[in-house]
């Protein structure tokens, strides 16, 4: 009963990532529910669901891998995380902000928002963008949204 794992995910090419952090801004904007980017982001701390990591040599953006065998879902004490049609989602009504998912995610891909409630990349499927905003806005096309068929 294993589901077909051929689904699109967000991937990053380290060689092309400029560490410009635009993906973080595009992510925060896409999930703000607002239509004016300045209104949504200017002068405020942002809580993106993708973040740029790296060192002086290399950089890359990290977001949820939507694992086939997700330890975050299995560990959530509130049953707030679930995997449906290949996408791992958080039910923010149920989340109590215990951070157990942060304790277990091997990619460091989850972080709470300003209210302490968890949020994570849900591939922009639910917001107005409809496709990952980080991918759409990446100036060097370092972030792509494609099927690679690998199982995580």
């Amino acid at each position, binding site marked *: 009963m294993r589901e077909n794992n051929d689904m699109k995910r967000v991937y990053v090419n380290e060689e092309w990532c400029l560490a410009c952090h635009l993906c973080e801004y595009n992510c925060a904007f896409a999930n703000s529910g607002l239509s004016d980017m300045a209104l949504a982001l200017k002068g405020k701390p942002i809580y993106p669901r993708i973040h740029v990591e790296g060192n002086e040599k290399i950089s890359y953006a990290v977001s949820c891998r939507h694992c086939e065998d997700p330890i975050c879902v299995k*560990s959530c004490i509130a049953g707030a995380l679930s995997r449906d049609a290949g996408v791992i989602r958080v039910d923010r009504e149920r989340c109590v902000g215990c951070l157990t998912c942060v304790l277990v995610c091997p990619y460091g891909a989850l972080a709470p928002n300003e209210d302490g409630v968890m949020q994570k990349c849900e591939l922009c499927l639910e917001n107005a963008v409809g496709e990952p905003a980080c991918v759409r806005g990446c100036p060097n096309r370092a972030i792509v949204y494609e099927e690679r068929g690998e199982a995580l």
Partner: protein
Amino acid sequence: MKRYVIVGNGVAAVGCIEGIRSVDAVGEITVVSGEKRAVYSRPLISYYLEGKTDLSRMNYRGADFYEKNACRVLYGRRAVRIRKDGKEAELDDGSRVSYTGLCLATGSSPFVPSFEGLDSVENKYSFMTLDDALALEKGIGRESRVLIVGAGLIGLKCAEGILERVKSVAVCDLADRVLSSILDAECAGRIEKHLEERGIRFYLNDSAARFEKDRAILKSGTVVPFDALVLAVGVRANTALLKEAGGEVNRGILVDERMRTSEEDIYAAGDCTEGFDVSAEQKRVLAILPNAYMQGYTAGVNMAGGDAAFDKAIPMNSIGFFGLHAMTAGSYEGELYEEKTETSLKRLFTKDGLLKGFILIGGSERAGIYTSLIREKTPLASIDFDLLKKAATTAAFPPEERRKKFGGVV
């Protein structure tokens, strides 16, 4: 057709059901549920009292969970005996349920030491189940002075949950510090101070010696009057069913990495078991929710004829009190790396070239990267541990390894 019987209806049972259904869509599943409730998240009972969740949101799965997974649930029933020869579980109403595979997900029960005079206390509570929390909710009010015996995870979450509902909360414990099973003295001191600032009073290194109706007399002679008493001294794994059936039991039901007990076709999962802690390399009761689910899932897959192993169990906890979070994992042995600020504390323990455990108070960003190093036993020589010590980051992995991790093909 296979017949699965699961004794217990908590998170380990859910894992078991989902594990079975990942392999076998048609086998019969019977769940024996002592509590007359659909599965809910027990760790949320303190959040319920604090007003951070409610009864409907505490349900661990959706309303159609049992129906969708074609489970028969026997509410309010308990298994009293396993008849190994006939492969039957005998229930408390005398009925029998036959199985091809049995999973014991019986959890644990509060352990109450025999305090002198405890019988004279009328208003006393445990803090394990939702019924416990609902009873406590009824038994306290704005003017209540509450004494909690036990400064472990259960006692302190209870204290946090009720603080705003009552007049005062005091906590006593025989240990010299709070959360003594997961924190050393300095780390515990940070949490204790934070809780004291919120108004919780502690009597540590000094537990209750005896009770007189509405007051406790501590070992030191201090008298603590109370209107409600919560007993959160500890828990014991519920092992009796297997033990009486001649199975191997230590502090918990002994299981292997496939969650098999010593007895044929009998599996066990969750707080009732003693599994292998890969960080300490020894058997331990790991009574934490993630392990319950993962053990249950593993048991379910194997009961249904699949092939699963859960061989990465470690103790781990993420626990917050009034906004201050503590994360702990693994075992605290070997060499210590430490960073301290006014508001945060990080301790990493390394031994034999491996990360063995950590304690993080305050900052816990991307802590799962540390946790995965412990679980996967990643050789520290293969990564940039100097970088990783300072901040949990996948940048510490060699590029090829990292690209593989993230599914890159470049």
